[in-house]
């Protein structure tokens, strides 16, 4: 994230210096909670460790940065950035994808209930298991979530490419972001569509995540089907030109 924002700021600096905007500037109306800022504004720093470094141990770049921060205005931090130790970017992304109509409270509530439910099932199993089997049971819901998501990520994807009037499904490599997005999207759609009317979302989601953790369930099945389609369409791989 730091690299893309750095790229963005250098590009915007180039653009700004071209139009002469990068000079001391205060808006006539004070903007709060906008996502588009004058390039003069700096990014906020939510991590606590940065502020705990004593004066003597700062590198020259860090000293310069601190001096710059004392004169320049800083963008308002969004609601999703925290300095909490329990902050998890992958989980935040999942919460945002689950959110409907901007209602993050309900989405976050569902995810916390899911994590609690998964932990309860695993801890109950742990306490009832004999001594030898205890080490194999994974009780950490965050570890289960990350592992389940890993197991759902496809390795190769398909793209619809037009050649000679017809559209062919061509196997293509996927970026990390696209893979993560597909895994989360499949998980959410599966839990929304294929559940009984009376089952609650967190119950179904915890069942699916636990199944995906042990590489069973509908979501990994969908991933395997995508892989099989890509394998069967190997002949069209040369239609890809990038």
């Amino acid at each position: 994230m730091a690299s893309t924002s750095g790229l963005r700021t250098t590009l915007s600096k180039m653009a700004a210096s071209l139009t002469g905007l990068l000079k001391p500037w205060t808006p006539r109306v004070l903007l709060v909670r906008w996502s588009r800022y004058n390039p003069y504004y700096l990014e906020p720093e939510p991590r606590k460790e940065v502020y705990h470094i004593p004066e003597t141990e700062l590198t020259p770049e860090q000293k310069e940065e601190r001096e710059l921060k004392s004169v320049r205005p800083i963008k308002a931090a969004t609601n999703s950035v925290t300095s909490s130790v329990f902050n998890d970017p992958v989980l935040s992304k999942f919460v945002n994808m689950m959110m409907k109509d901007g209602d993050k409270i309900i989405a976050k509530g569902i995810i916390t209930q899911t994590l609690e439910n998964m932990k309860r099932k695993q801890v109950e199993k742990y306490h009832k298991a004999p001594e030898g089997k205890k080490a194999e049971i994974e009780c950490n819901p965050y570890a289960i979530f990350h592992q389940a998501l890993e197991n759902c990520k496809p390795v190769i994807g398909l793209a619809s490419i037009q050649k000679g009037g017809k559209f062919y499904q061509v196997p293509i490599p996927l970026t990390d972001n696209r893979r993560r997005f597909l895994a989360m999207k499949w998980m959410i759609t599966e839990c929304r569509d294929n559940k009984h009317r009376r089952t609650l979302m967190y119950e179904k989601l915890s069942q699916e995540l636990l199944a995906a953790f042990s590489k069973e369930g509908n979501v990994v099945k969908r991933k395997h089907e995508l892989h099989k389609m890509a394998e069967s369409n190997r002949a069209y791989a040369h239609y890809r030109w990038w």
Partner: protein
Amino acid sequence: SFENRLAFRWFWLPEPVRPLHGSGCGQQQEAVGMEMRPETFSIFRTQENDPDCQSEQHQGQYYTVPPSHFHTVFPHGLPPRYQQQVKTFNEGCVMVRQPALELISHLKRADYSKPTLRYLLYGVKGSGKTMSLCHTVHYCSTQGWLVLHIPDAHLWVKNCKELLPSSYHASRFDQPIQASNWLRNFRTTNENFLSKIKLRQRYVWTKRESTEEGQPLGELVDMGVSRVKSSSDVVGAVLKELRLQAGGTEGGFRLAVAVDGVNGLWGRTTLKKEDKSPVAPEELTLVHNLRKMINNDWCGGAVIATLSQTGSLYAPSSAYLPQELLGEEGFDSMDPFIPVPVSLYSEKEFESCYLYYLDRHWLQHPHSQTEEGKKELIFLSNRNPSVLERLCAFL
């Protein structure tokens, strides 16, 4: 090693006690249900499972309710999240805290030939009033008292699907489902008393049914459970009999009336009559009889009550003091009472709770097991027991 570091701050750590039986004992009993763990020393647990022998030195430590007692003493009355926790951890552990110890010491030293003393537990939301009540109920149970535990008085003044006009009194209303449920749980708790207590009066239910004088109480309770229509009147009869016989010298037993959410008995209800006019609490048979029980005109027992804002009707969420929640009428009825404040966790109690969750593998997030995570938990929960429990649930 985390436990050991704390050990040197609070206690001197003696040699760990060897398990009395091998781990075979624990494994055999796993098949039965809840486990009896081999006895090892830990700072947050105490081996003193009898509430009678617990004292200030055990404050902040968890004691285990023996699995055999659990279903008889607590068929109802425990908070729902705590019941889930008991099922997950496969054991029922209660923290020994100062309000419960104070209550138990009062109960030990009270004079039971004088009119009943009323104790009222009050505190902010989530501070542990219901758990302290349950601890006291366990003490009364182990001492052989007859326990009348009403899990939540608010359940009797709201969400009632069936409201029958009472057969005994024209202007009152019966609640058959609630009454029969309560009688069933009462029967589970006090099995041994049901055959010993004999009725002193003849009760006529319908033209053909009546319960004679001298019959055991168990028959009355069975009749109430089976004939749902007259169960509210049966509850009234049971309460009257127990009130009369509690202080008696021949075969006398001590009666503990434990009411959770006692502020629901005064105030308003959300129930409506057929002409859409609101029902006052006095017009409900169950509430009417329970109010007579809470009066201190009988002797030979104690009334332990808890205030509760959580299930209460038409009370602001910031209200927790007796004056605010009971209202004028309720306060005048309860007056004089012994107030017992329940506070949030102290530092030692918080440490104990934190170590207990660590021991039961409940705190799974890697950062929650560090000092930073612990400071964050203290900050987020403000040492409030229920908030801490909800936070640790998903961490």
